[in-house]
């Protein structure tokens, strides 16, 4: 029997029917009997010393069961965090950012919890705080983090959480070469928020002698460790249920309020649930803001000679995974180019603002905005076509473009050329328009560990256990495609189980576009494990030597004969039935001497080309044509690849054109919520959007695949800005390119109407 190839096709999304019928149950849709509702209490200031908390009025509200404050939690306050254990379960003594929870009310109804939360009286004293890079670096600035949390850290008495230094070659020596053209600029990227349409939701319930947690989290196994550690429970007594997140984008990677609801559930002796409002999610997660200074030396022919980058990332009040985004995001600031000498200094700078965390692109979009804008400015100064400047410098496959790391793993020039061809780079730009092109590179996972068990049941159907969170990327569909092909089962006969740490084997995390490569390989290996067992089974049934049996791609071959795996298994398992269990593992160990702790498993690479029109009177940018091309190695599911790339592009257009968190002088978010934090709607799209891929099967994942999903977001802003410059001559180094900012830039470059007498050109 031969099976249809599912890999490389686009079968119906696993979970698709539930998504279009409303049956998909997200955390907030779960109803546990007897659950208490939790509402958080926070202050309308950023940093404050908490003098006293009076819960008596709240407790008098009918239905309010209890109020949890720091005083109700273990002393010292339990802290957690993926990089530093600095985040308290509730603010302890002092709040560090606008919206930090100081208390939580548990009640029989949400109404009662909300009423109680309004009545919790907090006496506090507002304290001086820092909200900007300059403010945080001021020597007289108040410290965001208690130095006691950073013993032995020479930076402990500053707001710099970490400094990262990377590089190769000798930049000073290279810069001494005569005749180089030096291009310099500082580029800023504002705070933006993930704005998953599903607000974060948490449920906790006592579970026998342990605890169960439901969370819309990307890393259930990581959460399991956090909760076990805080509650002093064995891992096996912490069961994490992770229903498919309604969008994650990095904001749901790490624990936020799960520890709080866990303590509250144990206190209540019954389930408690906390569903954040959208406003509260803005106060829980964001992307790090940045100011990146780039200086690049070019030879007159356009070849890169050296690059010097100083990147200041404004992270929030607690480290979360933000410092890692700074390190990993800045590490590739040399770009996908052959640069003889590179020096990178990146700082993660604490501030009294929403803790920043992972967000699609993981620190790279900020850096790429700077570096690619710098490349475009260089092209202008050198008088070289921006496309040619990139092609001239981009690394070839195999080039050690970052010495000591994974060599370039794709034919990146092919990706660039494809994007250029699709936008018609070498054809005349239509009148009134401008064109821009930019490229983006992201280092993939540096370590990883994924396990899968695959169970081939006696009728040939298959259950795949794979702990990846399916948050829209369609991970389960990919795993089902692999299992269907490898085990010869109809696609509809595959069930993929995820989101339950008591059932599904360990997966390190769903991040860094890793799951097709890491979990996909684990699933593939589990299928191979089954194939080996089927091979023995077939040899026994057919009374041939195992050496004569080949099992691959869904079929058993003995000489000229081909048998279906299903038929072999049915006979082999016999009257008792049962199943054949395969186990797969994919591991990438840490390399302690590597600056990031490990080389890149793969690189994500994307080229984006756009055509824009700029309304010179209003500053409005419209995008008649948009092209995005990603090197994906092999598209396991082209429809899903397209969805991820186009989705990343539109998300990138959000921070390029309109998104920014706006703060008042007291560190409060002014545009809290959906009315004044603008994200793209269906009316804000490019008129024509085209996405394509490059497939050379040169990735480390199943069938030559690479990770993808973040790449198409990386170069959006510099591509659009380059096109604006092409159309108008204005160079803009700050995001977003809002109409007002573009208008202002045009006016400064003397290219706009506006005052009487100038209008109406």
């Amino acid at each position, binding site marked *: 029997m031969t099976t249809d190839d599912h890999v490389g096709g686009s079968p*119906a*999304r696993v*979970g*698709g*029917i*539930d*998504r*279009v*019928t*409303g*049956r*998909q*149950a*997200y955390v*907030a*849709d779960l*109803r546990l009997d007897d659950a208490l509702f939790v509402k958080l209490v926070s202050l309308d200031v950023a940093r404050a010393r908490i003098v006293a908390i009076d819960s008596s009025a709240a407790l008098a509200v009918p239905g309010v069961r209890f109020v949890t404050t720091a005083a109700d939690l273990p002393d010292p306050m339990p802290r957690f965090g993926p990089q530093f254990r600095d985040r308290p379960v509730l603010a302890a003594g002092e709040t560090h950012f606008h919206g930090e929870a100081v208390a939580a009310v548990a009640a029989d109804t949400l*109404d009662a919890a909300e009423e109680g939360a309004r009545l919790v009286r907090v006496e506090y004293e507002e304290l001086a705080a820092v909200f900007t890079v300059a403010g945080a670096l001021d020597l007289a600035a108040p410290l965001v983090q208690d130095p006691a949390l950073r013993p032995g850290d020479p930076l402990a008495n500053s707001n710099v959480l970490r400094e990262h230094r990377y590089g190769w070659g000798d930049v000073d020596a290279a810069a001494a070469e005569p005749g180089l053209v030096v291009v310099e600029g500082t580029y800023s990227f504002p705070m933006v928020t993930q*704005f*998953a*349409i*599903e*607000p974060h939701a948490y449920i906790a319930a006592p579970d026998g002698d342990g605890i169960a947690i439901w969370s819309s989290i990307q890393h259930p196994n990581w959460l399991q460790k956090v909760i076990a550690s805080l509650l002093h429970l064995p891992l096996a007594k912490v069961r994490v249920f992770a229903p*498919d*997140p*309604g*969008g*994650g984008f990095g904001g749901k990677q790490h624990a936020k309020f799960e520890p709080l609801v866990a303590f509250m559930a144990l206190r209540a002796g019954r389930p408690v649930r906390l*569903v954040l409002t*959208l406003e509260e999610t803005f106060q829980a997660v964001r992307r790090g803001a940045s100011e990146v200074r780039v200086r690049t030396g070019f030879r007159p022919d356009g070849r890169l000679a050296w690059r010097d980058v100083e990147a200041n990332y404004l992270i929030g009040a607690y480290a979360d995974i933000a410092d890692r985004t700074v390190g990993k995001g800045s590490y590739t600031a040399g770009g996908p180019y052959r640069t003889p000498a590179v020096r990178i200094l990146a700082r993660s700078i604490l501030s009294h603002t929403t803790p920043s965390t992972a967000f699609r692109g993981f620190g790279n979009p900020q850096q790429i905005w700077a570096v690619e804008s710098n490349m475009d400015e260089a092209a202008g100064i050198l008088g070289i076509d921006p496309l040619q400047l990139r092609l001239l410098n981009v690394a070839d496959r195999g080039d050690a473009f970052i010495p000591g790391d994974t060599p370039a793993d794709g034919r990146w020039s092919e990706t660039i050329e494809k994007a250029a061809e699709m936008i018609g780079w070498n054809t005349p730009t239509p009148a009134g328009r401008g064109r821009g092109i930019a490229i983006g590179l992201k280092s993939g996972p540096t370590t990883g560990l994924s396990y899968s068990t695959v169970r081939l049941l006696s009728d040939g*159907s298959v259950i795949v256990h794979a702990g990846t969170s399916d*948050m*829209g*990327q*369609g991970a389960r569909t990919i795993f089902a495609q692999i299992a269907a092909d490898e085990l010869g089962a*109809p696609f*509809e*006969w595959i069930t993929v189980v995820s989101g339950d740490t008591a059932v599904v084997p360990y997966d390190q995390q769903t991040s860094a576009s890793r799951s097709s490569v890491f979990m996909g390989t684990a699933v593939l290996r589990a299928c191979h494990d089954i194939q080996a067992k089927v091979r023995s089974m077939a040899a026994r049934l057919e009374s041939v030597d195992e050496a004569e049996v080949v099992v691959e791609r869904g079929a058993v071959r003995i000489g000229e004969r081909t048998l279906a795996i299903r038929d072999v298994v049915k006979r082999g398992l016999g009257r008792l039935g049962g199943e054949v269990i395969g186990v797969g593992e994919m591991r990438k160990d840490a390399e302690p001497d590597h600056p990031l702790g490990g080389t890149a498993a793969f690189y994500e690479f994307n080229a984006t080309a756009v055509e824009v029109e700029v309304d010179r009177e209003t500053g409005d940018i419209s995008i008649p044509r948009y092209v995005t091309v990603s090197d994906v190695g092999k598209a396991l599911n082209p*429809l*899903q690849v*397209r*969805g*991820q790339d*186009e*989705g*990343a*592009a*539109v*998300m990138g257009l*959000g921070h390029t054109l309109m998104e920014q968190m706006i703060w008042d002088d007291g560190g409060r978010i002014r545009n809290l*919520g*959906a*009315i004044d934090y603008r*994200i*793209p*709607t*269906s*009316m804000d*799209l490019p008129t024509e*959007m085209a996405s394509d891929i490059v497939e050379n099967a040169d990735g480390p994942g199943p069938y030559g695949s690479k990770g993808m999903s973040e790449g198409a977001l990386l170069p959006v802003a510099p591509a659009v800005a380059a096109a604006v410059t092409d159309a108008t001559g204005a160079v803009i180094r700050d995001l977003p390119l809002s109409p007002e900012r573009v208008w202002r830039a045009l006016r400064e470059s003397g290219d706009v109407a506006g005052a009487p007498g100038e209008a109406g050109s």
Partner: protein
Amino acid sequence: MTAIRIELTVNGRPRSVPVEAHHTLLEALRDDLGLTGTKECCLVGECGACTVIVDGVSVDSCLMLAAEADGAAITTVEGLAGTDGVDRVQRAFLATGAAQCGFCIPGQLMSARALLAITAHPTKAEVEEGLAGNLCRCAGYEQIIEAVLLAADEPDAGDGTSEPAEPAP
């Protein structure tokens, strides 16, 4: 608090349900009627995740008191097709890959359904306008728009008429 009994038809089924005066239709659907397909996100009428059809027109159920729905006929995502089927819009969403994380999809479907009821063969611009009140952060807008245009080209089996879903094993 004031409980009010309202009588309404939800997905073709007459319901009588006590609601709080200050509760929205969204809360009544999700909490009182257990219809959790309608989603909650922004609560200010910006995102459209809670879109349902009330007496033939799409509304944000977060901005309508449950009491206001007394006497109304409501269709939620659960009522688009029969229990084991999908309608042409749902089928098109599956075909074009429009449903990614899925959280906005019930709202998108309701807006699409409402649009097609008024404009049987919309242009792309009309679809963009018709669905602009439904934010998608996976930003699968291109595929969502494609789905609506695809659905418009298919014969409509009518509300509540179930059509075959994926083949069962």
